[in-house]
């Protein structure tokens, strides 16, 4: 068992290192290529609208030097080997500490979104797949299309207007307590659930048409028994793969949702770091996001192998 997992994990580890170096190089090059004087952007972020002046920009230049200089890049790579991501050019805080705070918020949001999407999506897909062509099946197709097509910023605002202002149930925005998580989580989850519903439904329809399903029914099992003993595991594999693939969409959505609901988070941090030309923060957040992709894919590999041992022998 361990041996069958070691090879893919070793590959993912090598991938992680490649991601780290590539992200570092690319984000450094892209930041250097952006138009405008970096120092002015950093000064703008530090001092704000009314107070950014050429004098303050020179003060910043004297303090931090030229962030687009190659030596800054090599310092960053050297720091990487020591596990040091450097300091933010805007706040002066350690990048690792800022990311830890922001990543925590994003992880909460992403976690809630995935859990909610799993509560909503697969059960609906399962019911729809067991009764193809039924009213429920057609209704889920309709709902899935609607939620898939609605941009998240619109969905978020609609939910705030309906739930917070209309019903007065949950806070409109804010961060820190469980009640602040539900609306942003739901905004993300509805889009994700649209996909998982459809994938589950297709997998169930396909399973119902397969020989093993018919055999299970023929030997006397009821349909719910087939679903419980064979169907769920079969359906879980594509759903799991989909969740890993949806991670990209989730990260995009997180940026939008964080802004609307006033959340901190890694998407928010990355966008602001790019605006403010905070090179170490851009490198750090991009690195963490890149590694998160590798980690999620590695976990999905492992889970898929555990669910479907045939994979290992292929």
């Amino acid at each position, binding site marked *: 068992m361990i041996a069958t997992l070691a090879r893919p994990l070793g590959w993912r580890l090598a991938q992680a290192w490649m991601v780290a170096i590539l992200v570092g190089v690319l984000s450094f090059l892209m930041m250097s290529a952006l138009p*405008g*004087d970096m120092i002015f952007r950093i000064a703008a972020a*530090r001092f704000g609208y009314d107070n950014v002046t050429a004098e303050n*920009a020179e003060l910043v230049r004297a303090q931090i030097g030229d962030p687009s200089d190659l030596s800054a890049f090599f310092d960053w790579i050297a720091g990487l080997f020591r596990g040091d991501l450097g300091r933010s050019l*805007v*706040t002066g*805080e350690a990048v690792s500490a800022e990311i830890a705070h922001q990543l925590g918020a994003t992880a909460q949001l992403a976690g809630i979104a995935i859990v909610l999407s799993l509560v909503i999506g697969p059960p609906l897909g399962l019911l729809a797949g067991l009764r193809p062509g039924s009213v429920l099946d057609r209704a889920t197709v309709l709902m899935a299309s609607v939620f898939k097509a609605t941009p998240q910023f619109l969905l978020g605002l609609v939910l705030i207007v309906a739930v917070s202002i209309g019903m*007065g149930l949950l*806070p409109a925005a*804010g961060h820190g307590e469980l009640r602040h998580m539900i609306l942003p989580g739901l905004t993300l989850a509805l889009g994700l659930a649209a996909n998982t519903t459809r994938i589950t439904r297709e997998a169930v329809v396909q399973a119902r048409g397969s020989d093993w399903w018919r055999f299970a029914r023929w030997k006397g099992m009821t349909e719910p028994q087939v679903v419980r003993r064979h169907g769920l595991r079969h359906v879980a594999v594509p759903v799991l793969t989909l969740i890993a693939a949806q991670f990209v969409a989730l990260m995009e959505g997180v940026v939008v949702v964080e802004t609307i609901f006033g959340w901190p988070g890694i998407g928010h941090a990355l966008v602001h770091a790019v605006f403010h030309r905070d090179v170490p923060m851009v490198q750090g957040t991009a690195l963490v996001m890149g590694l998160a992709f590798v980690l999620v894919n590695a976990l999905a590999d492992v889970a898929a192998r555990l669910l479907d041992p045939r994979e290992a022998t292929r």
Partner: protein
Amino acid sequence: MFRTLSLALFMSGAALPALATEGVLDVVAPFELKGPDPVQSGNILIKMDVTETLVDADATGALLPGLATSWTVAEDGLSWRFVLRDGVSFHDGSKMDAAAVAQSLERSRGNGGLLAKAPIQEIAPLDDMTVQITLSEPFAMLPSMLAEYRSAIIAPAAIAEDGSVTSAIGTGPYRVTDYAPPNKMAVAAFADYWGQAPVIADAVYHGISRSETRALMAESGDADITLTLDPASVTRLNRADGLSVISVPIPRVLMLKVNGAVFDVETRKGLSLAIDRAGIARAVLRFPEGATQMFPPGMADWHDPELPPLAYDPEAARTVLAEAGWTPDADGILQRDGKRMEIEILTYPDRPELPLVAAVLEQQFAAIGARPVINSTNFSEIPAKHGDGSLSTALFARNFALVPDPVGTLLQDYAPGGDWGAMGWSNEAFTAGVKALAAGSADEGTRDKLVATLHAELPVLPIAWYQLTMTVSDKVTGVVVDPFERTLGLSQVGWSQ
């Protein structure tokens, strides 16, 4: 029975607010927390009553004793002494004394604080409770500058060896309990505060950059005080229950900075006549009126009702421009000496109304035959392009009350030029007048002359006077509306009965 209970609570006096509501006072504003440094996030720290300044200011801009109870200046105008308030402690329990204050002010001065603009030689403790500030030339603005948020006093323990600030340790009625940048800061009443204890024990600041979200938080009751709303939300919130929308004129002016090296004074007058200020104010900004001169009526010393208002007259604009040598070419585009009148309007989208106003200006300049383009980008491009001389025009909002006295801003922006003011313009009499006002040696009537010069030469084209828009929930009372955007009077805000 309920009434009796609340009456009983009322009788119990000071303990009432804590008993009556367990709630937290929620303040929502667009500014994100950058760090604990007053130079970076001091406007939030001072609004949340975490930090205080030596000199305080009220809603009329009058200076009041703050952490300094009195101050004096020597005959020569160079040596200022500030006597500190007794019995003030920082939130870490340490005592506020002259050494701590001098260290805090020197740090601010060396790290981009407003004091860097004052002709200060040294800030040093004179004795345990007196701070002496030595100047190189007389400077009457000093107390005003000490009232600014970047000059707030923080504890020595908050200042690292390299001058960076590691935590927000002030002297205010509230101390920081949870500092979670960029969006959230929770504060609680500071037990050893020297003055009146806060009425509500707990408050939270939320930095919410999207104006729609702020408006929704106000409407849903999540926010007790909401600052800065977009015009569309104001219209809607005016109809909402449970809150009041407050709109007050503030000393902030929406203006078009014009490169004087490219556009001479006659050309600027022509462009000014092409701008429909009243239309922009009503249709885009939803303000009652456009600017008729540089300073709004609220700045009584600086607003001159006798000045002829800046007019909108496209016909006259064409005539003035023709006299300045701008004539239409074969395509109908204004040209002078073979060069077309190309105007780049540089602006930034952080204030959502700016690109909209830029779009109107683009049309109105095109209507008189100019070739305008909009460049909406990061606001730091304005000082950057000012610095390298490549700026054409820039549209922005400038606060004339960074310090309660606009002379501070004029000194930076117009004597003779500055990143957020005049460019390629100078007027010796004007510069001398501003410097005399700053030094405290100006003649009677200097201000009127300065205002008249700005009106006649138009180094920048004023477009609109800003309104501060905020909502206050009916749940709270006692919120201070400060046109200088300095305080909310937070510690004395209470729950409505």
